[in-house]
């Protein structure tokens, strides 16, 4: 056999091994979480607040973390959406395609996207301290919002960038202003907005390092923005660090809850991109 054919064969085997490794990893991670979590999860864990002696293995659940996470994620997604959509429109409708300013904003967003959430957290923490704020739900929401805005804008931007220029021009030629043209663009990139939203929620709900500094942790459900809030990832982290089996088991259960939420979001996102693109002009 020629050496090139032998190389081809070896390379093929190596590639199959790599792909198989990827599958194996996903199966291993999901199986670990589902089996460990599934065997210990009870209704009490997801439906009740931590009781007395919770962290030494007494009764209670992590409802505080579930509700806290939902509060942080839903508010920051809403605020992020309100802030991001205008920027996307500005970059794509108001500015010319080759605008220098748009270039810099996109570059800044790409850099923000890469900054580790712990750095956001640390920065926000010092700012909060400077203004005399304590760790609170409000702080957590703020940091999570800043964390997801780059993801929001850049993923919507990718969709809006491919928007046919002809439609914009058709709208302008009918006498519509740029602001009025936004209405047409929204209809076209709606699936993109939905996918971006789900993507951001997924990132926001899984982030622990950012809220660690800013939202803090608490055993009760926060009643106002100035009270600290628990979040699921942190609840998993703290409980897993405990020496008692009972507490660790609750961490596995919480990990299961978090994984299920994230998987549902991810599948929903894929579904929306595939199904709801019918309004889109090619």
């Amino acid at each position, binding site marked *: 056999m020629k050496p090139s054919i032998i190389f081809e064969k070896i390379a093929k085997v190596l590639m199959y091994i*790599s792909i198989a490794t*990827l599958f194996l990893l996903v199966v291993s991670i999901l199986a670990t979480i589902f089996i460990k979590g599934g065997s210990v999860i009870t209704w009490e864990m997801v439906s009740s607040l931590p009781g007395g002696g919770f962290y030494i293995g007494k009764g209670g659940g992590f409802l505080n973390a579930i509700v806290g996470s939902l509060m942080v994620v839903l508010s920051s997604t809403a605020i992020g959406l309100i802030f991001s959509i205008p920027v996307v429109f500005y970059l794509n409708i108001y500015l010319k395609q080759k605008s220098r300013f748009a270039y810099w904003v996109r570059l800044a967003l790409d850099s923000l996207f890469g*900054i580790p959430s*712990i*750095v956001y957290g640390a920065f926000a923490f010092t700012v909060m301290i400077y203004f005399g704020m304590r760790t609170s739900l409000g702080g957590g929401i703020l940091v999570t919002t800043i964390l997801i805005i780059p993801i929001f804008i850049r993923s919507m931007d990718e969709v809006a960038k491919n928007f046919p220029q002809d439609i914009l021009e058709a709208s302008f030629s009918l006498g519509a*202003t740029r*602001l009025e043209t936004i209405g047409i663009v929204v209809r076209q990139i709606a699936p993109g907005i939905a996918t971006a939203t789900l993507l951001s929620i997924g990132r926001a709900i899984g982030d*622990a390092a950012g809220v660690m500094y800013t939202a803090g942790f608490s055993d009760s459900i926060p009643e106002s923005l100035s009270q600290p809030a628990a979040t699921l990832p942190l609840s998993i982290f703290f409980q897993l660090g405990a020496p008692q089996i009972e507490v660790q088991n609750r961490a596995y259960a919480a990990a299961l809850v978090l994984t299920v939420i994230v998987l549902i979001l991810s599948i929903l996102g894929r579904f929306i991109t595939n199904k709801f693109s019918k309004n889109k002009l090619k």
Partner: protein
Amino acid sequence: MIKNFTIFWKKFRNSSRIFLDRFAGKTLLFCSVLILVLVLAMGVGLTLKSIPVLQEISFSELMTGSDWQPFKNKFGFLPFLMGTVYVTLIAVLIALPLSLLSAIFLTEYAHRRIKKYVFPVLDILASLPSVIYGVWGVLVIVPLVSDLTPESYGFSSGYTLLAAGIVAAIMIVPLMVSLFVEVFSTVSQDLRDASFAMGATRWQTAIKVVVKKTLPGIFASVVLAVSRALGETIAILMVCGNMAKVPESLFDACYPLPSLLANNYGEMLSLPIYESALMFAALILFVVVIVFNLVSRLILRKIRE
């Protein structure tokens, strides 16, 4: 009279539409400028915060010292810097071959049907939160590493540099693969066809045409993945062992920068200089990540055009 009024009304309406359009434009501009300001503010804020510790201890001493005793005013960052560097290095060494082979397979070999199964799997891998990787690392990788520890080393708990590197590697694989796939798909089919026509095998074409042509893109993708690995916090924190000592072997515990930040945020308020030192750590991460990101984004952009 009525005619005059209609003309007036139309004029008013049009000018108000134009006013609204311009007003909205200014508001939107403001939002966009805010993003640029945020990046600058973080850089400036972190720098200002790290000045106190820099005044006390020289930059070179901070970066090369390995004595970490915050309450005795000793801030040597070397263990944390080396921890970060080693974890990232191991992560790239593991993730690069795995991702490169997978991406070549996906773009050069795989049938569309196979891609339909692989991409969702990568999606799942990318969407899992850091803390889930941490839990998996503690349950699967840490015991594995503990078992793998050679006899000559003696006992190792498994909470080691190697475990941290493996977990970080797996976390950057989905990013690397998707970047590689994107970069490879910019190579035109003509080049591949020309290579096949000369009698090259698929593997030869993949390496000598596709990979060779996209080397800058591969480099940029790796840099981007590295910057992601640098900042991974919770998952690494859970498996790295957290010992402020420069690791000497794969089976030593390590303590990367993000873990330092995550572990000490409560304690740091007790001393202003301690806070300053931690903000200096955040500044290092911020600068390195921004530079890496800018370099790789600029290269990737060139390639796309």
